[in-house]
């Protein structure tokens, strides 16, 4: 398994290199190579995670090593899915290095779970974990697109046509893509939270227990719900939407990692090492 993991890291790093080269030299074949490498890395990870799932019967997210690995997998998967509809090639220069970095971080932590946890079984739980991870990955992409939007907007407003002006796509495409990311992220987050609540009901007998993780998940959910509502109601788009996507991602990161490290809750084993 270790060898597959290392292969995946290498593939992501090579993909990151070709996407960065694409950013500088604007040669289409570089982006195509990067895309292929990313797909290859994603297949490696899928095989690895799938094998683990079959072996243990639950989603491998029992310690920080496994969790980060699933994060990288979900991120790359979401990017590849996004690219089917929105040809935002340049976003690869954000996704590939990020995925490589997350996987590199993952292997710094021990692989073996501290103790096999029988809690982590069942359909609801699987849905909960997968949906939440994919949703979070979509939000991460939305944040990345948001950064690109702000860069390009600054170029156009400031009438400076620097490095990024010709390399980045139109504001309209960036805005639409960011919105699509948030809509899909929000959908997955909603599904994931519902699945989690159902699982809690089965396990502990109640849907909601005011655990810090639950509270912060709700905060995140409400944040993105407001963001989507305001776009429909008063047209929060463009610069404001991009900034909010970044702010939302900060809240999300706190919910994902911060709560585990700073507050205590029942998702503790998730980020153990």
């Amino acid at each position, binding site marked *: 398994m270790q060898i597959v993991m290392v292969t995946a890291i290498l593939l992501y790093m090579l993909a990151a290199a070709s996407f960065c080269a694409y950013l500088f030299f604007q040669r289409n074949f570089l982006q195509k190579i990067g895309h292929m490498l990313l797909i290859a890395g994603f297949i490696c990870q899928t095989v690895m995670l799938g094998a683990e799932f079959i072996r243990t019967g639950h989603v491998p997210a029992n310690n920080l090593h496994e969790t980060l690995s699933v994060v990288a997998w979900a991120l790359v998967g979401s990017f590849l899915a996004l690219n089917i509809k929105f040809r935002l090639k340049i976003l690869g220069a954000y996704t590939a290095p990020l995925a490589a970095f997350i996987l590199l971080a993952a292997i710094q932590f021990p692989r073996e779970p501290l103790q096999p946890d029988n809690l982590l079984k069942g359909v609801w739980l699987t849905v909960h974990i997968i949906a939440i991870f994919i949703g979070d990955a979509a939000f991460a992409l939305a944040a990345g697109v948001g950064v690109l939007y702000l860069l390009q907007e600054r170029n*156009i*407003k400031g*009438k400076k046509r620097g490095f990024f002006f010709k390399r980045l796509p139109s*504001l309209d495409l960036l805005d639409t893509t960011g919105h699509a990311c948030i809509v899909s992220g929000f959908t997955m987050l909603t599904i994931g939270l519902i699945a989690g609540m159902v699982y809690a009901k089965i396990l502990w007998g109640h849907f909601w227990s005011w655990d810090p993780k639950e509270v912060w998940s709700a905060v995140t959910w409400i944040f993105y719900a407001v963001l989507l509502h305001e776009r429909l109601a008063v047209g*929060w*788009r463009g610069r404001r939407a991009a900034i909010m996507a970044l702010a939302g991602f900060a809240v999300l990161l706190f919910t994902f990692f911060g709560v585990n490290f700073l507050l205590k809750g029942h998702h503790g084993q998730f980020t153990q090492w």
Partner: protein
Amino acid sequence: MDKILLIGLNHKTAPVEIRECFAFSDTDARSALSALDADSAISEAILLSTCNRVELLLCCHDTEAATTAAKCFLAQSKQVRLSDFESALYIHRGEAAVRHMFRVASSLDSMVVGEPQILGQVKTAYRLATEQKSSGVILNRLLHRTFFVAKRIRTETGIGDHAVSISYAAIELARKIFGTLDNRQVLLVGAGEMAELAVEHLIRNRADRIVVANRTFERGLGLATRYNGTAIRMEELPNYLGLVDIIISSTGSPEYVLQHGDIKGAMRNRRNRPLFFIDIAVPRDIDPRINQINNAYVYDIDDLNAVIDENVEDRRREAIKAERIVDEAVIQFRQWFESLAAIPTIKALHAKIRAVAQAEMQKTISHLGHLTEDDRKAIERMTEAMANKILHEPTRYLKSEGCRGNRSQSLDLARRLFNLDDENQKKSDGG
């Protein structure tokens, strides 16, 4: 290569008062070509006349005589005294003429470097020359190389990239904001000439509806009908701010036509959909503070000019790459030209025929094992003699005075008849 001569003047050497004297229409050019062709000093001629240049590309036996003839021709055909324009003339010979031709067609010598029209103009000039049969082997070859070089420069360098006119720059920016211009509505405030030019480009880029607001309604209506648009009165302007995406303003109004406050309110109505202002009026029509409003972008004439300057700078950088391609092509052309000299052609012809004869003889002998050494010697002698006999007449002809008048054509024909230029070179000529 001394036979090739280029004589002319352009926007760098001659002011417009002189250039306008030398404008040749198609009919003028035809009669000019026949006149040049009739001159005994000149064997081939092409005349290129655009608003920025007039150039005679000639092939001659005697450069001095041809130069004088060309100068006199220019003076006579347009009734201008030679002393009035002689100082503006440049004369290139041989390699310099070839390089100049390549640079002109690739738009490296143009007023706006990289402008695409010049290649078409060179093609037209060449077409006229072929129709008048005033161009021959050398100039045909040179012009084909010229088109090949120009095309290569256009695809391999960014010399034609990026807008260098106001309306192109505006469209480039609009694309960076809206992606495509499909279904984007355009509002013209003021129906000036500049605005019309911009609209034409926008329509060509598939912008949707045009709305025209003008102080005099009638004039606005005229413009609107021409582009299938709607004309409105100035007072209706605020109602349309919510509907359109691109606003091009070019009125003569001394104060701002659209104020910060107007747009602030309008953005709410349009749910913050982006709004792009192109202000080509001086004094300005659009309050520059509007640029600070979210999703509103204001470019005035100076901003657009700055964009253009930057693009011109980019093109200049690309032009360096283009010069390298020109250098390469000049060298290739010189090699071809030198191969036209009689000796190399005769040598190549001999080598080719001998090689064929040798190869065929070896093939035959290898099947005839029963032959004695003497028989083989006899066959070899016969093959040798046949090759020499076959080569005798063509060699004499190519060397002789007989084809003096049209030697390069005969040499070229010989090279093509016997396929003496290798295949690779052929291919690169194909473009």
